[in-house]
């Protein structure tokens, strides 16, 4: 139960953070991004509480239903609790910044703090809050969020329509996704170098299968993205045909589904201990 709640809340957390990054990056969407984000922010807040409960249960060794009693100790006396509190403050700043007040300018900074904090709270915590590993992982989370989130945000804006978007918007999405992908790979290679350095290969049955499934999904996402950028986008930009616009949008749906599954597998992996 605890494992399921932890994995599900991490999954939703990563999805929502990706969506917020996507909304922030797509300029066309950003005009109204902050206020559009509000319902998702509220959901993020509820999820962040579930995430806390799952972690408290895991840390205290109590069943989920009884873990409330340990929340105080975890929040006030542990490294994770401090990180969670900073994340909660960043979330509050995001919520306030989603209004029309002068605090709107805080939005990108608050988002950055939230992501950095989330990165440093995960498995890189042993390397320290201020560490190259935490920084690399932050870039990784931001880039992953930008790649998936820009696709989510674009679909949310244009779903149902058969191409009511400009060339400029399509090109912008493709650029954001392409750059994000480069950063995902660069930060991933750095991560890999740090992690593989001196680590035992933890290839267990369930764990290994999850990793292989994840690898397969990444290849699918890469392929869909590549077809869209290398084949459909040039057609769209050159001819501007409605058919190309529909195809561009149609390819984003399976890509988004793949990202949703990918975040799910990532959450399962983070909740699964490799054997050995």
């Amino acid at each position, binding site marked *: 139960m605890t494992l399921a709640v932890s994995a599900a809340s991490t999954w939703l957390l990563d999805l929502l953070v990706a969506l917020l990054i996507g909304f922030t990056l797509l300029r066309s969407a950003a005009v109204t991004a902050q206020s559009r984000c509000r319902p998702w922010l509220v959901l993020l807040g509820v999820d962040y509480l579930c995430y806390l409960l799952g972690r408290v249960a895991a840390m205290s060794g109590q069943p989920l239903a009884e873990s409330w009693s340990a929340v105080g100790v975890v929040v006030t006396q542990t490294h994770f609790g401090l990180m969670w509190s900073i994340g909660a403050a960043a979330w509050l700043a995001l919520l306030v910044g989603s209004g029309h007040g002068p605090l709107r300018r805080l939005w990108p900074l608050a988002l950055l703090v939230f992501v950095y904090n989330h990165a440093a709270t995960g498995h890189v915590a042993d390397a320290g809050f201020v560490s190259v590993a935490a920084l690399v992982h932050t870039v990784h989370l931001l880039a992953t969020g930008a790649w998936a989130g820009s696709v989510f945000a674009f679909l949310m804006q244009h779903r149902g329509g058969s191409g009511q978007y400009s060339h400029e918007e399509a090109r912008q999405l493709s650029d954001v996704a392409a750059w994000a992908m480069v950063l995902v790979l660069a930060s991933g290679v750095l991560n890999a170098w740090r992690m593989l350095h001196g*680590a035992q290969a933890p290839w267990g049955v369930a764990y290994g299968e999850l990793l292989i499934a994840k690898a397969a999904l990444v290849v699918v996402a*890469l392929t869909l993205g590549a077809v869209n950028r290398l084949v459909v986008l040039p057609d769209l930009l050159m001819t501007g045909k409605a058919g190309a616009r529909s195809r561009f949008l149609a390819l984003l749906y399976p890509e988004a589904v793949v990202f949703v599954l990918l975040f799910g597998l990532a959450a399962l992996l*983070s909740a699964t201990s490799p054997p050995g």
Partner: protein
Amino acid sequence: MQPFRKLIVSTALLLASAAPLALAHAHPKQLSPQADVSVAAPKEVRIGFSEGLEPALSSIKLFDAKDKLVADKSAVDGANHKVMALPLPALTAGQYRVEWVAVAEDGHRTNGHYRFTVK
């Protein structure tokens, strides 16, 4: 095709990088007294772990052969968070069981137990 192949290789590396991330569990490295030994009555149980511990959630408890709690006021070393110790009262001869819970600073929880005998 070359850049695409590079991409696949990098992606595989990236995925592999996710695996050892979950390894930061605290495991006991040094036990004092050691497991399954006969010793003169020790003044404390001291365990050195592979990771720094969260003092608020980590603990050592000592039980006697009748499963009665003998000591549970353990503390993590203020200077070295990888070390946790449990001061003991004067122990009589017999077998004892040490139960430990270690919550690493990254939040992972491990636990275990072992026995030793007082001569």
